[in-house]
């Protein structure tokens, strides 16, 4: 069975600092990987996705993530964060043969001035 682990429940950082939000998954088959962002009192918005091809994927708002098959990881990074990046970030995995997404518990990114 597939699962998603987000090791950090909260990540506080200062504005303009780099950030990495960690995500590891477990699956016995090929997977598709996603990061979603949830701003306060809003729904889930797709940040980026890995389906195939280049292991480094770029998303909206300057975020990127790297798929590492050997480490079963899909960490999210941004070189310089803004106050407006304060939100909760969810990693999600979808097995090739399945339709539904399995989410991690989320990481709350808090950007301080």
């Amino acid at each position: 069975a597939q699962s998603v682990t987000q090791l950090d429940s909260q990540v506080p950082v200062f504005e303009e600092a780099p950030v990495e939000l960690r995500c590891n998954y477990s699956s016995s088959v090929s997977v598709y990987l996603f990061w979603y962002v949830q701003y306060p009192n809003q729904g889930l918005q797709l940040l980026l996705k890995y389906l195939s091809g280049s292991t480094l994927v770029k998303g909206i708002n300057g975020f990127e993530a790297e798929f590492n098959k050997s480490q079963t990881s899909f960490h999210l990074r941004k070189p310089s964060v803004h106050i407006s990046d304060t939100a909760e970030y969810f990693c999600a995995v979808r097995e090739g043969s399945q339709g539904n997404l399995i989410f991690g518990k989320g990481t709350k990114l808090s950007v301080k001035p």
Partner: protein
Amino acid sequence: EPEVTQTPSHQVTQMGQEVILRCVPISNHLYFYWYRQILGQKVEFLVSFYNNEISEKSEIFDDQFSVERPDGSNFTLKIRSTKLEDSAMYFCASSYRESNSPLHFGNGTRLTVT
């Protein structure tokens, strides 16, 4: 850009009452989903729907829950007799294809059962 829309944004109901949460998926999407997020917890899959039938459901989706696509645009989640523990944010999502299509989520309906 087309969006998934959900109504109402907030629903308050008494325990034991029936509620219907409504969603309008993106018009050319074929796969529909409901997820829920209990306050402070992870987003959990409830059910997926394709070709007018349930394609997959989780253990959360028991006999109290049902889904329906009553017309060509709406996708509803019904909870027959609400319990306190049903209080959560309910998200509707849709996708064009299965597997490699991203899910597009609505802004959610916050259900409060008192």
